[in-house]
Structures are given as structure tokens and as C-alpha cells.
């Protein structure tokens, strides 16, 4: 194992130099996209915020069930089927009753693969709803419940809408390089590097921003129905359920200072449909009060003094300039399909991040020096070779991480330091084996050679066990811990490379030159 062909030596050198170059590329300026790469610093090192949001799909489900219920009613009567007793049970199921004679027809209509009312998903081989029937006297009770994939479909679609809105809101605030990702089918991960104070973004992401314009009514028996909705201060007003206009019709919103009243307002522009609706409603409703409702609370309910026909208007309220800016931002970016909650937050300030980098580098340097000194004391010249290997190993490790633009976290730095401590193991195994072999073998080159051969399986076994732990941790771990698994795992690979190519090459060169030396190792 001590023989190296020229070609091998050259390719090992070239590979090492190229990969090591990427380590250096972290610290210098190169005007080339391919060669200028940087290790990404994790949020725990550069500071920033990690927010995990969960979408509460319950309102969406209820809304869908209500829509389905009315379309079902219509569908059945179009097909001349008498049905009664429609209701939604537990916010989960639609239930209705039909006569026994039409039961077969209804079931076949609901389970037909071409069914419009209960669509069939070819991909999942199931319908949107699971249909169940129970017999009650001379009639049958039918319940419809979202099937597993019907629910997945619904969640995925509300997640897709929500992530779009989240992206717009985060972009509006203008943080640098946010990272917005789906997690599962009802979660969204938002990473905001460098953000010192996530409070504002959190309060913006937590708002559904569902805006409606509805009339305040005095007559409780309106045909659309009415409900009581509170103002910000807790007092209530009776509001018609008829929606004049919703946030969907807004094309722009901006905070303004009203010159006459000296108040902060939010002005908005409507699309063509919205402008028409608004003009019609305000013309017929002069003298009435129009409530502007956001997420179940009335912002204000001004009197309509004249028809508003231009497709533009303004929202007055008890705003500060900041809250008006935020409201305008929310209105511009649109409403979330469902409310969201922050279920996990991790924020690291930039001060702590820098302290962590400093502490990490300090402990890396000290750990490195300790190991290097130990090896020199223990193995002299071969310790020196092991140390050169260690340095190369470090350059390779950081080089590989840079090449793939991996994310370095604080535990990741710990993984690098640990690699320094454990990387010498392979060389130690080899040298100890050589020491044994040299006792019974006169030809020292053969002794060195068999030292390498005989220790090989042990080294592989030993490293594969650690690699297994690292891979599993990388797959299942989250955030910073993943960074640890990454550096540990890549560290094992670079260790094996540097031990078997670089250390072995150096050892071979030295041994062949000094094979007659009294005490070789």
C-alpha cells in the first residue's frame, strides 16, 4: 500500500487543492460566480428569526361544508330527489335524510367516478367525500365526510394560498433573503436572517386580514341575517351579513395623512368590479353607516354622506402612522385563507450570534493546538505527518461545506472540533499497528505496508458506525442539530480521504527515504 503511481499523486493533489481553495474563497473576494462561494451561517450564528406557523384549517373546512351543503341541496332537487333534514354535524359532516326508494340513485350519483358533486381523485383513487348511510325507519340517513385525501387536498390548497400571502407580507417589510418553506401540509416555516426584532413581522403574520364592508343596520330582521360585531373598544353594533365589498377587490392601499382632520387614514383603490359594487351600494345607502370590519372587529363605521363612485376611498379609524402602515400592508398583500398561529419561535440577536462565532473559533483553535501538540509529543515525525493530514482535513471539510454552500451552525462548529479530535484516530490505528508489525518483520517497508493493510477493515468499521449516527441525525434532526450531523458526517469522509491519500503518501515518501534509520517509529 505504499506505492503510488504518478497519476494518482497528481490527481490527489489537484483534488485537494481545488477543494481547499473553496475554504479560502470564504475569506477573499473573487469576481467569479462559480469560485466565489460562502458557507451560509445558520440563524444561531448570524442572528435572526425562525418562525414555524400552523394554519388552522377549521374555518376553511366549515366554509367548504356549508358551500357543499347548498350545492348538494340544489343538485338533489335538480335530480328530482326529495331530501330533508340537512345539517352539519360537529363541523365535520354533512347529514341529510332521503326516502328509501331513492337511496340507490343517490348512492350511485355520489359514488360515480364522473360525479360532479363528489369529485373522484384519480391520483389517490378516492372521492373527495366518504359517503355513509344508516337506515332510520322507512328512510335513510346519509352522511358525507371529507375523505383522507379530500382533506389533504383542502389543506394543501389552503397552504399554497397562505404561503403566497406570507411571502408577499414578508417581502413588503423588506428583510434580506428570507427563507419561506412548506412543512407538512398545514405548516409554513419562515426564516428571517439578520432580523433583530421579529415582533412586527410576527404580528403581521398572525393576522388573517379578512376585510369586509357591510352596512350597520337597525332592523334586526334583515333578509340576509344580522350579527353583533364589536368595535375595538368593546362596544357592539348590529351588522348586516350582506357583504358589500371584500378585501379581494382592493388593488392598492396606502397610509395617508388627512390634511383636513389631521388624522392618519388608509386610502385604497378598487378594481373595476369592486368600484361598481361600491358605487351602487353607496348610492342606495346614503345616510346609512358603513362598517369596515377586519378579522371580526369593526375598525370604524362612518356615515355615507354621498355616493362614492371613483373606485377609491379611505378608511378612518383610531390609527397611529405605524398601525395605518401595517393595515395598508396587510390589505395590499391580501387575506390569508385561514388563521395562522406561531407554534415555534427561535430568535437569536446579532450580538449573541457573533459571540457564538467567536467562542466557536476560539475553541476550535485551542482544541486544534492541543491535539496537534499531543500528536507531536506522542509520534514525533509521524505525529507531524498526522498533523499535516489534520490541517488538510480541515481545509477539505470546510471546502466541501463551502462547495455545497451548506449552512454552518454552532453545533456544526462543535462537529468540526470533534472531527479534529477523532480524525487522528485512523492514523493512530495505523501507526500502532505498524509498531506491532515492525517487531516481527525485518523489512520495514513490508511492515509499514502490512500495518496499513491490516488496520484497514478496523478503520472502515469504526468510521462507518459514526457515519451511521451522523446520517440518521441529519435525516431526523432539526435546525442547528442538522448542522452538527452534517459537519460530523462530511468530516468522516474527508478524514478517510486525507488519511488514505495524503497521510499515506507522506508516510510512504518518508519511510522509503529513511528505511534504514535506527528507530523509525
Amino acid at each position: 500500500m505504499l506505492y503510488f503511481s504518478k497519476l494518482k499523486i497528481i490527481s490527489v493533489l489537484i483534488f485537494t487543492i481545488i477543494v481547499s481553495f473553496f475554504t479560502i474563497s470564504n475569506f477573499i473576494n473573487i469576481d467569479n460566480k462559480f469560485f466565489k462561494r460562502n458557507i451560509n451561517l445558520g440563524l444561531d450564528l448570524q442572528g435572526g428569526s425562525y418562525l414555524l406557523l400552523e394554519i388552522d384549517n377549521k374555518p376553511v373546512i366549515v366554509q367548504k361544508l356549508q358551500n357543499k351543503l347548498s350545492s348538494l341541496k340544489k343538485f338533489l332537487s335538480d335530480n328530482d330527489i326529495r331530501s330533508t333534514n340537512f345539517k352539519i354535524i360537529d363541523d365535520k359532516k354533512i347529514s341529510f335524510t332521503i326516502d328509501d326508494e331513492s337511496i340507490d340513485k343517490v348512492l350511485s350519483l355520489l359514488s360515480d367516478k364522473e360525479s360532479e358533486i363528489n369529485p373522484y381523485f384519480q391520483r389517490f383513487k378516492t372521492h373527495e367525500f366518504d359517503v355513509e348511510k344508516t337506515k332510520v325507519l322507512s328512510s335513510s340517513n346519509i352522511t358525507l365526510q371529507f375523505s383522507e385525501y379530500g382533506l389533504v387536498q383542502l389543506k394543501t390548497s389552503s397552504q399554497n394560498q397562505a404561503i403566497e400571502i406570507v411571502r408577499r407580507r414578508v417581502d413588503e417589510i423588506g428583510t434580506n433573503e428570507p427563507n419561506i418553506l412548506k412543512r407538512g401540509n398545514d405548516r409554513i416555516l419562515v426564516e428571517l436572517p439578520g432580523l433583530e426584532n421579529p415582533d412586527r413581522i410576527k404580528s403581521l403574520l398572525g393576522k388573517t386580514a379578512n376585510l369586509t364592508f357591510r352596512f350597520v343596520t337597525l332592523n334586526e330582521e334583515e333578509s340576509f341575517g344580522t350579527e353583533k360585531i364589536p368595535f375595538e373598544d368593546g362596544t357592539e353594533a348590529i351588522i348586516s351579513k350582506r357583504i358589500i365589498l371584500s378585501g379581494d377587490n382592493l388593488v392598492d392601499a396606502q397610509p395617508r395623512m388627512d390634511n383636513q382632520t389631521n388624522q392618519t387614514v388608509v386610502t385604497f383603490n378598487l378594481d373595476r368590479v369592486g368600484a361598481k359594487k361600491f358605487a351602487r351600494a353607496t348610492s342606495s345607502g346614503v345616510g346609512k353607516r358603513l362598517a369596515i370590519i377586519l378579522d371580526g372587529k369593526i375598525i370604524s363605521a362612518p356615515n355615507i354622506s354621498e355616493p362614492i363612485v371613483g373606485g377609491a376611498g379611505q378608511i378612518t379609524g383610531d390609527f397611529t402612522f405605524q398601525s395605518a402602515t401595517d393595515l395598508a400592508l396587510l390589505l395590499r398583500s391580501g387575506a390569508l385563507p385561514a388563521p395562522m398561529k406561531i407554534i415555534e419561535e427561535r430568535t437569536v440577536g446579532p450580538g449573541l450570534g457573533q459571540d457564538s462565532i467567536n467562542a466557536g473559533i476560539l475553541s476550535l483553535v485551542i482544541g486544534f493546538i492541543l491535539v496537534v501538540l499531543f500528536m507531536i509529543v506522542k509520534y514525533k515525525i509521524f505525529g507531524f505527518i498526522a498533523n499535516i493530514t489534520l490541517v488538510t482535513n480541515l481545509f477539505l471539510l470546510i471546502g466541501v461545506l463551502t462547495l455545497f454552500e451548506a449552512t454552518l451552525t454552532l453545533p456544526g462548529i462543535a462537529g468540526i472540533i470533534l472531527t479534529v479530535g477523532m480524525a487522528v484516530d485512523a492514523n493512530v490505528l495505523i501507526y500502532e499497528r505498524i509498531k506491532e508489525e515492525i517487531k516481527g518483520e525485518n523489512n520495514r517497508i513490508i511492515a509499514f505496508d502490512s500495518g496499513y493493510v491490516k488496520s484497514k477493515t478496523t478503520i472502515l468499521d469504526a468510521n462507518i458506525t459514526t457515519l451511521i449516527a451522523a446520517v440518521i441525525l441529519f435525516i431526523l434532526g432539526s435546525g442547528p442539530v442538522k448542522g452538527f450531523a452534517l459537519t460530523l458526517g462530511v468530516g468522516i469522509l474527508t478524514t478517510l480521504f486525507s488519511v488514505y491519500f495524503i497521510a499515506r503518501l507522506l508516510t510512504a515518501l518518508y519511510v522509503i527515504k529513511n528505511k534504514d534509520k535506527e528507530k523509525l517509529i
Partner: protein
Amino acid sequence: MEKNIIHFNKFYKKFNILSLFLILISLILLTFKGLNYGVDFKGGTLIELRSLDNTLSISNLRKSFNNLNLGDVTVKKFGKENDYVIKFEKKQSIEENFIENIKVELRNEIGNVFEFRRVESVGPKVSSELLKSGIIAIALSLGAMLIYIWIRFEWQFSIGAIAAVFHDVLITLGFFSLLNFEINLSIVAAVLTIVGYSMNDTVVIFDRVRENLKKYSDIKIFEITNISINETLSRTIITSATTLLALLSIFIFGGAILKGFSFAMILGVIVGTYSSIYIANPILVRLNVSQSTILKEEKE
């Protein structure tokens, strides 16, 4: 054979009894005292706070936080002077602006003389998921190692190696319980690395045991294990030493966040090195491994 051989095998019994005793204590501790789960696994909020006012005392800070009605609040010093960690469980879900509210209220209590260096808030659903995936990760890695050793060695060896790893994990966790040591995500990483390290250490000795079994047909396994431990001893010591040097460097200079992680690893490396000698090998002896064990396997 070396002249100055150490008779590790003389103490197999004594140390096995000690290990069994430690495992028993660990199990009792884990059952009755349990582990001190951190925010990651229990849910709740952690705030690392730096005070800019040298006169602010920990009791003052504790009093102010207790006034905020956050339930059970613990306030501890963390690393440097004037750095504190505040932890509390919050029963409801995290409201968007509840951290901001705490800042505002705290400013009213002690003035604007602090900064939040780190905030971690984990909801109950997420924390139970994290705990589950942590346990799965450890179980999976143990399983994967078992399979690997099974493929590479005979079954007697895999039992020895796995027993050693279980021993290490149990005793390390027992220590954590005894010291009321906080268990967070990074501790799972540490435990997994311990598993890898312990396995690595055992495998090196086992490889040598197997080699010696082939070499000497007339030596009993009791002696073979001792010869193998001795032959690999200097490697064991050197590797443990360099690993411990690296870990000590993290422990001392790596900052407060990595303290628990590196402490767990230091503990694990020591226990792991011990178990390779005193758990893995006696099991080979007990299972009567002999030259025929290996040869039979090779014939098949």
C-alpha cells in the same frame, strides 16, 4: 505478547457488578425522578437576557418576572456576568405579540436596561413532536448499528456491542437525571454521537479479538479478550485523549450554549471507553465465543 500486560480480565466480574448497579440506579432515577426536559421537549419559552445595569440583581429580576403573571418562572445565571436565562411554561399557544408585551412590561418594572439575546418559544404540539423524533432517532441509530455489526461480525459480537451501547446511553441518561441536567435538542445529538463513539471503540477491540481467535486455536476467549484489549490499548488511550482534548476545549471556551452538549459528550466518551473493555468483552466470554464460532460463520 507484551511483557507488561495489564490483566483487565481479572476485574470483569467486579466491574460487571458495578455496571449492573449503575444501570439499576439509572433506571430507578429515570423512572422516579425522570429527566429535566428543556423548552424543546416540554414546550414553553426561554429568554436569554443580558442586563446592561450592573446593579440589577437576580432576585430583582426574578421578582419582576413573577409580577408578569407568566406562571412558574425560573431565572438562572447563564455564562457571563449579567447574562440570565429565564424559562417559563405558557399554557396557551404563543400569541404573536406576547414577547413584545413581556418586553414592554419588563421595561416598566426595571427600566430599559436589558436586551433579549435569544428567545425560544415552543408550542406543546411541536415539543411533543420533537421529543418523539428524538427518541426515534436514537432508536433508529441503535437499530442500524445492530444490523451493521450483525453483518460484519457474528451474533455474539453484536450482542456485546449493543449491550455496551445500551449501558452507555442508560448510564449517561442516569447521570443527567441525577444532576438534573437539562435535556434539549443538542443533547439528543450528543447521545447519538456517544452511541457512534462507543460503537467505534468496541469495534476496534472486536476486530482484534476476531483476528486473535483465528491466530490462536489453543487460547481461551477469556485470555483472548485480554490480549486484544492490551494490543489496542494505546490506541484506545490516545484516541480518547485527543477526543477529550477537543471536547474540553469546547466545554471551556465554546460558550454557554455548547456547555451541556460538550459535557454530555465528555461523559459519554469516558463511559463508552470503559464499556468497550468491561461490558463488550465479558459478554464474548459469557457467550463462549471460540475459534469455531468464527470458522462456522465463514463456512456458511
